[in-house]
């Protein structure tokens, strides 16, 4: 997030797109509801499903899956054609406006409506509400990113904030809600194929010299394969070994049959986890790690707040904290890894990562710190880009809409979109073994609207066979008027009805994020 969670309550307008906030980030969802109920904020919600926040919205619009980009460009078009931009901000703080203007002319509301299903007047109303607000926040999640145009979708939202100057100030900004507890931190620490820790350039000589002092000469500083590319490498025999810590690609990745063949093809698959997950079952060696309740460390939340995780329990049986396992392995391979505690590892991190430079366990004992926090006296940073962008000028990007590869056809007439539900988390490894949560949602289901269910003769709680080009599953039917006709929804937590068997290999060309949100499917009742 460019801004902080608490600032949402002070936003005049909140634009939620591609985030089912009350389900996935309930406490943030509550903050948005408070902004509406207690402070009179105006809420805009765009989503193929009538999510709970829609009840609080000044404007709610359903949108066809896969058409976000045409929709956002339509909003930009209205802002430019009705001259609602922040001219002063564009002039002083941005570059590339003319290129954006030239690219956006064709996204007139009348043209965008037929693509997105959003009425012309609704597009205009949203544009006016957002642009005219003193403070407006954009909130999004994977409904924006898990598309073949994921990167462009984010670029278009950034354009929206730049065009209206809704960034770099309190209660504004472009605010992605990170889904997993420490996905922000994992990225910050450089668990990515194309950057060093702290997003430092791999080919920066200064960074290489700095890292070489602590990592030794000759460390690997090239760009590596992304997760999807590693799976592909395993499939085609290029990759021989994978070491997987606390991840479960056998449920979370697209095209699960393909993933299975890929992992089975490896000479060595090591999985470190707390349970024998779907992925661990395929491993040659399984290492028992510890849960977050059994170790010390830090997590970084979606608003860049680094906070302490404290050990409350002794790890189960002979399992070990994951950092201890990694140290043990490093030592076995003849590498020095003499860390007495995570606090000592943090000292090394802060020496290498400038935005964590001022973060110590001693300071975190009192409360969390939001990066950038470059030195020991720095109070942390509530919102980014204050008084100017980190890169200098904010750059507009040109993001042309491309249709999803997945369109309804005679054979596959419905569009499936996937996601998560309140009581479960990711592949369910933990929540399906937490009895009080599993009791609420013990099995998977497919949401479908009453009209479509009637047409197909599907009954509430009956079974339906869902097939895509690459696979099929059987799953329970849940009829609900909260979903757009022609669209069905399945959560991905459930291994026995694993929706990712249906999702193909299509992905965003820039960051390789899979197209989980749009998949053409066929539905048949099971008797």
């Amino acid at each position, binding site marked *: 997030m460019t801004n902080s*969670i608490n600032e949402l309550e002070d936003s005049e307008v909140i634009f939620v797109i591609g985030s089912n906030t009350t389900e996935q980030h*309930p*406490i943030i969802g509550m903050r948005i509801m408070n902004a509406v109920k207690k402070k009179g904020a105006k809420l805009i919600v765009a989503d193929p499903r009538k999510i709970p926040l829609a009840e609080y919205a000044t404007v709610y619009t359903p949108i066809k899956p896969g058409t976000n980009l045409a929709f956002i460009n339509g909003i930009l078009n209205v802002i430019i054609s009705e001259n609602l931009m922040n001219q002063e901000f564009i002039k002083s703080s941005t570059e590339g406006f003319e290129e954006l203007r030239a690219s956006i002319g064709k996204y007139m509301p009348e043209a965008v409506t037929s693509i997105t299903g959003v009425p012309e007047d609704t597009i205009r109303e949203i544009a006016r509400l957002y642009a005219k607000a003193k403070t407006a926040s954009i909130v999004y999640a994977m409904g924006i990113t898990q598309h073949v145009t994921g990167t462009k979708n984010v670029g278009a939202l950034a354009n929206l904030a730049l065009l209206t100057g809704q960034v770099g100030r309190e209660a504004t900004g472009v605010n992605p809600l*990170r*889904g*997993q*507890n*420490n*996905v922000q*931190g*994992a*990225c910050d620490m*450089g668990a*990515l*194929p194309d950057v060093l*820790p702290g997003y430092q350039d791999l080919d920066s000589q200064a960074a290489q010299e700095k890292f070489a002092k602590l990592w*030794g000469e000759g460390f690997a*500083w090239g760009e*590596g394969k992304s*997760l999807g590319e*590693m799976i592909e490498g395993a499939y085609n025999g290029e*990759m*021989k*070994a*994978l*070491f*997987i*810590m*606390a*991840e479960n690609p056998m449920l*979370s990745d697209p095209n699960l049959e393909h993933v299975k063949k890929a992992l089975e093809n490896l*000479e*060595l698959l090591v999985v470190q986890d707390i349970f*024998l997950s779907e992925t*661990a079952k395929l491993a*040659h*060696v*399984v290492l*028992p790690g510890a*849960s977050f309740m059994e170790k010390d*460390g830090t997590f970084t939340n979606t608003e860049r707040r*680094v*906070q302490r995780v*404290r050990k*409350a*329990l002794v790890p189960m*049986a*002979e399992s070990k904290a994951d950092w201890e396992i*990694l*140290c043990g392995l*490093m030592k*076995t*391979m003849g590498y020095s*890894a003499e860390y007495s505690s995570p606090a000592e590892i943090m000292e090394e991190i802060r020496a290498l990562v400038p935005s964590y430079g001022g973060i110590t366990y001693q300071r975190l004992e009192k409360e969390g710190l939001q990066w950038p926090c470059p030195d020991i006296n720095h109070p942390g940073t509530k919102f980014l880009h204050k008084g100017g962008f980190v890169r200098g000028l904010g750059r507009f990007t040109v993001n042309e809409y491309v249709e999803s590869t997945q369109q309804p056809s005679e054979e596959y007439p419905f569009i499936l979109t996937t996601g998560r539900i*309140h*009581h479960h988390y990711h592949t369910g490894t933990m929540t399906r073994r*937490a009895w009080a*949560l599993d009791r609420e949602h013990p099995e998977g289901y497919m949401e479908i609207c009453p009209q479509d269910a009637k047409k197909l003769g599907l009954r509430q709680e009956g079974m339906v066979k869902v097939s895509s080009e690459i696979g099929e599953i059987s799953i329970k039917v849940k009829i609900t008027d909260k979903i757009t006709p022609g669209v069905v929804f399945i959560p991905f937590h459930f291994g026995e009805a694993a929706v990712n068997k249906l999702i193909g290999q299509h992905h965003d060309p820039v960051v*390789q994020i*899979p197209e989980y949100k749009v998949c053409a499917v066929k539905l048949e009742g099971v008797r």
Partner: protein
Amino acid sequence: MRKVLTTCGYCGTGCNFYLNVEDNEIVGVTPKNDHPISKGKLCVKGWQGHSFVHHKDRLKKPLMRQSDGSFSEVSWETAYSYIGSKLKKIIKEKGSEAVGVLSSARCTNEENYLMVKFARSVLRTNNIDHCARL
């Protein structure tokens, strides 16, 4: 009963609460009223999402696959040395780029940092990623 303040291990909101511990068992959760984000509130996962830690299916010892396809429990030393020698052999024969690691958004910053160091500095491979996109 001990109360241990910690950060929730589920979504990216970063709520804090106290884990109430008795005899190495979580017996309850107490919200933290003065936390800047959660302000004394928690969602159902924050309140109820912890019993998995004591689940009977938890992995208790390292496992290695046997020639008949089944797993058997082994010591840490055996597991480490098998992984270490196998990785060294693959790197020697096929190069570092034939190995890769997937780190985790569930693990701590310190663990993610170590995993990156393990990949780039010990294995000398560029192939490191995690499930940020999933």
